[in-house]
């Protein structure tokens, strides 16, 4: 492979070509189809690993073709190759996880379509990261959006369709912002090729704000930071679990990838953009974390946690120093691994029990020790416990925020630390409710080897990369090569301060929850009647009287009553912080008023015609 150039295109062509093929194969034999998609995704993963040596020294251009005004091109840089390998790894895990998972749909839904879409989704994501030109990127970006839409709505339940529509509409809104940004960029600078844009000194000052904010919003919808995250907690739980793993594990990262690329690789933007992004990140960490704590749906909890973790990545890249970028990108990689793992783990839980409600789950650890072990590694990694990879990236992020020389840097640090505390809280809830305690829902099925492998592999990677993080560093070193400073500080009293801070935060939380005052009471005597199972979410936090049964997750709901954060939960429950709901509300009002004007009477319509004529005449004659 002397010139890997043209082979690089195989990364894109193979999954896209295999997408219809896998459908046809599935008509012949389901088994063949499963093996085929596994082999394709694994092959792409292996190929992307083999390409790493070639991008160490610089970018790899492998395809350019002039089509009219624009030049379609594809190329690989160290960062995009990292993304490609993550995409293919997770797609591989999803495709070995899926055959078992899909068995219950067999005969009811078209599973061939599922695999075909999965490969198309993969092709779209890979195309969106290896595109060397923005219009090309946009087309693949939309392919990714579209494939994800059909995957989210795959289960065909009313909820999944609703969530899918919300996802698609918000994504399209974002995509249109991106498109406007691309066209504006093209018109003002004359090129959309990344190589040429990177060589350009700066954006046209007149348009730079509008272009950059269009890109930030557009890519931000996919990256799901607060407050344009609202599609994520709906869409991720409703998708089939392997797809949730892909959405959270890698699709939102494609959005982050482009934010990082636009703001740190292509243009030298003013540092205030970085600060703004870091602050958005900090808010996202805390709000995502708080919302995750009270979830009772196993997948929704992890989905909110994804939002919180996206905040970490944004905070890191927003800080924009070598350390910050390194922390952000490594956290991106780590999050892909452990979040993929957690969603697949949750998928197994859903698969074996048939329920997503944490309150109905419990005691699965004895039945599935391998899965439990893997999930607990993912969970601890998410919580940032050493020696796992999550700790490693979070540690770099803390360091970056300490070194950040801005007035609000301490705020970032506090947000990051607090977010970490929150992540421990919600992931403990997840682990305890699902795997420990007494078993509440019997297992209908047991996970197959494919499922176990799919959670085992990322668990091993999480552990391995935590103990020996050298490959992580090596892989990101060429990415942040542009920024020279890359070292952290270690001050002993700082560490002591952290420990004290942690204790204080813990005490504060304890006070916040205020356990003593609101301890739960159980009715002593039920009169021989059966205890009724009552959905706690239904009456919390407003009604507190029907406490017949105490759930292990109950304690988490008491945080809702705390005055300090109660507003957040109320706002979330009533969709105040959901731009989608706000826009659709305005849209409905407008639609209603327009419809009211159409009463079906011919005379009114004729009045419109004549008044239209008068207005047009007036406009034409007064000039």
């Amino acid at each position: 492979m002397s010139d890997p150039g043209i082979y690089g295109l195989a990364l894109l062509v193979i999954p896209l070509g295999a997408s219809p093929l896998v459908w046809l194969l599935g008509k012949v034999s389901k088994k063949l189809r499963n093996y085929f998609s596994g082999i394709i995704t694994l092959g792409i993963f292996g190929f992307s690993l083999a390409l790493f040596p070639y991008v160490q020294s610089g970018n790899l251009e492998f395809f350019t073709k002039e089509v009219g005004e624009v030049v379609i091109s594809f190329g690989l840089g160290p960062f995009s190759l990292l993304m490609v390998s993550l995409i293919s790894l997770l797609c591989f895990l999803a495709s070995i996880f899926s055959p078992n998972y899909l068995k219950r749909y067999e005969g009811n839904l078209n599973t061939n379509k599922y695999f075909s879409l999965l490969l198309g989704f993969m092709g779209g994501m890979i195309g969106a990261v290896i595109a060397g030109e923005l219009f090309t990127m946009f087309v693949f970006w939309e392919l990714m959006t579209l494939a994800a839409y059909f995957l989210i709505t795959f289960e065909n339940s009313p909820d999944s369709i609703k969530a899918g529509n919300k996802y698609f509409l918000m994504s399209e809104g974002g995509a249109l912002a991106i498109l406007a940004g691309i066209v504006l960029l093209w018109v003002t600078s004359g090129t959309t090729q990344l190589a040429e844009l990177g060589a350009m000194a700066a954006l046209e000052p007149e348009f730079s704000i509008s272009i950059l904010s269009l890109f930030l919003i557009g890519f931000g919808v996919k990256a799901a930071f607060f407050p344009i995250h609202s599609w994520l907690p709906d869409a991720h739980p409703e998708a089939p679990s392997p797809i949730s793993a892909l959405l959270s594990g890698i699709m939102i990262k494609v959005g982050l990838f482009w934010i990082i690329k636009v703001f740190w690789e292509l243009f030298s933007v003013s540092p205030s953009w970085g600060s703004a992004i870091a602050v958005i990140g900090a808010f996202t960490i805390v709000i995502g974390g708080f919302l995750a704590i009270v979830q009772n749906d196993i997948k929704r909890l992890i989905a909110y946690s994804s939002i919180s973790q996206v905040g970490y990545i944004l905070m890191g890249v927003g800080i924009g120093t070598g350390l910050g970028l390194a922390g952000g990108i490594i956290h991106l990689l780590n999050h892909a691994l452990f979040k993929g793992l957690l969603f697949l783990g949750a998928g197994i839980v859903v698969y074996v029990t048939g329920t997503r409600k944490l309150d109905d789950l419990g005691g699965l650890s004895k039945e599935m020790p391998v899965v439990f072990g893997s999930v607990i590694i993912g969970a601890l990694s998410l919580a940032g416990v050493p020696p796992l990879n999550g700790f490693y990236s979070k540690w770099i992020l803390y360091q970056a925020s300490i070194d950040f020389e801005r007035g609000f840097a301490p705020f970032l640090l506090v947000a990051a630390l607090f977010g970490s505390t929150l992540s421990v809280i919600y992931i403990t809830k997840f682990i305890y409710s699902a795997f420990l305690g007494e078993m509440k829902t019997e297992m209908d099925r047991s996970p197959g080897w494919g499922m176990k492998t799919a959670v085992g592999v990322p668990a091993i990677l999480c552990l391995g990369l935590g103990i020996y993080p050298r490959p992580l560093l090596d892989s990101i070193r060429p990415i942040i090569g542009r920024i020279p400073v890359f070292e952290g500080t270690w001050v002993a009293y700082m560490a002591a301060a952290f420990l004290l801070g942690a204790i204080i935060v813990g005490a504060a939380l304890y006070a916040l929850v205020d356990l003593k005052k609101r301890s739960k009471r159980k009715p002593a005597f039920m009169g021989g009647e059966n205890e009724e199972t009552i959905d706690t979410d239904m009456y919390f936090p407003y009604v507190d009287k029907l406490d017949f049964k105490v759930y292990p997750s109950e304690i988490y709901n008491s945080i809702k009553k705390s005055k300090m954060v109660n507003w957040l939960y109320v706002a979330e429950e009533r969709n105040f912080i959901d731009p989608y709901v706000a826009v659709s509300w305005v849209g409905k009002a407008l639609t209603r008023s327009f419809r009211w004007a159409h009463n079906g009477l011919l005379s009114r319509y004729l009045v419109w015609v004549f008044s239209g004529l008068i207005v047009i005449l007036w406009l034409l004659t007064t000039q």
Partner: protein
Amino acid sequence: MLPLFVAIPLGVGFLLPLIEEFRERTRLFAVTVLLETGLLLALSLVKFGEKSIYRLGGWPPPIGINYVLDGLSSLVLVVISGIAFVTVLFAMTYMSKYENLGKFYGLFSLMLAGMYGVALTGDVFNMYVYLEVAAISSYALVGFNRGAEELEASFKYLIMGAVGSVFILLGIAFLYGSVGSLNIADISVRVSEVSDQSFILLSTALFIVGFGLKAAFIPFHSWLPDAHSSAPTPISAMLSGVLIKVLGVYALSRILFNGLNLPSLTPQLLTWIGAGSMFIGGMIALGQNDLKRLLAYSSISQMGYITLGLGMGGIFISQGKPAIATLALIGGLFHLVNHATYKSLLFLFSGGVERIFGTRDLSKIGGITRVSPVSGATGTIGTLSISGVPPFNGFWSKLVIVIAAIWGGLYPIAGIVLFTSAITLAYYLKVQRELFLGEVVGEIADKGKISPGIYVPLLILAICCIGLGLLYLPEIRGIVLKPAALALQEGSEYTQLVLGL
């Protein structure tokens, strides 16, 4: 060769009802019309790209009537013929249970003759005559089912259409009074020599309102949702797919661009009317529950895109930016072609839905992808195309329009175009939710089996929706769309062609 486009459908149109008086030969009628449209399609494809002129009776242009074939009219001819052919293919199966098919196909042919005439003629008054031929046959076709609702819609359409025609006729009268000629090319030469421009402005306003009624611009759109949803499905596809475009946008832009040389603020007016139609049409479509009504409102919105593209072209011509003007005109015409394909696809699809479920009410039906995967897939392609999702064709024409708007500095217009695109997606996602996905709801006739006669036309149009995206490629665009755009942009070329100056 050019008169054949009018003569063939005119002849068939008179012959079929005549034969029906003696013998009811449903199959024969359908096959005849299919052959007719197939022949016309072949003819328009053969003639494509040719520039020629036919003098009726051999009289020289300013006096006699002449048929002109240039880039724009050859594009429109192909669109008319293509959609008509597919529609007839669909109607052969779909309409087979109806009575009086001789009259149906006769009126259909008459409507075709009118549209071909409008597309070809180089004479304003002749254009009016053909326009009335097409319009009157469409009034009758809308009421073809003779139910109460259909008749009401037809009556409303008739009144509004007649008002529009009166405006157009008045406009022609004023124009003839002040310019002294009815030949479009001749008008463009003489119009600048007229000292008093006020009558020309008056007739311009009358034209915009008159043709605007035919093209269903906001606020002249009110007849369209009723008419297009009440007509028999193949006719809905024809009306939304081509009729409003040929009688409305094409005729108006022919007169304004080639004849009157865009007087005063007309381009700005067209642009903003387009933007308004786009937005308001889209917003109302959001609230519709009847599939065909939703599609009809969506037509208003989509016509806005076309008008906006053409209007922007006019603005850039008057600003002296020819390259951007060409791009904007290409965008408008590209969208015209695209909308013709996906809107007729969606209307035919709605006919298939009605066949399967017996109703079009979105709240009472659902899960069509399960019942009939083929129609589900084609319908999905149609909805994605119209919502402007790449790689389907609707995206590319919207992209061209957005590029032209931003390049020319019309940022608010670009914003409205993009925002409306999101609205479009919103109401088609509603259709996705209610109709395509989900559990099967509603009673299914004949176990949901639809015959090849229904789904083959759908498949043809769906393939067009994917394939027409290729028109974006500059090589193909240069052959197909650019001559059409230049025909509008370079008025002198048209004059040269007709008058031989």
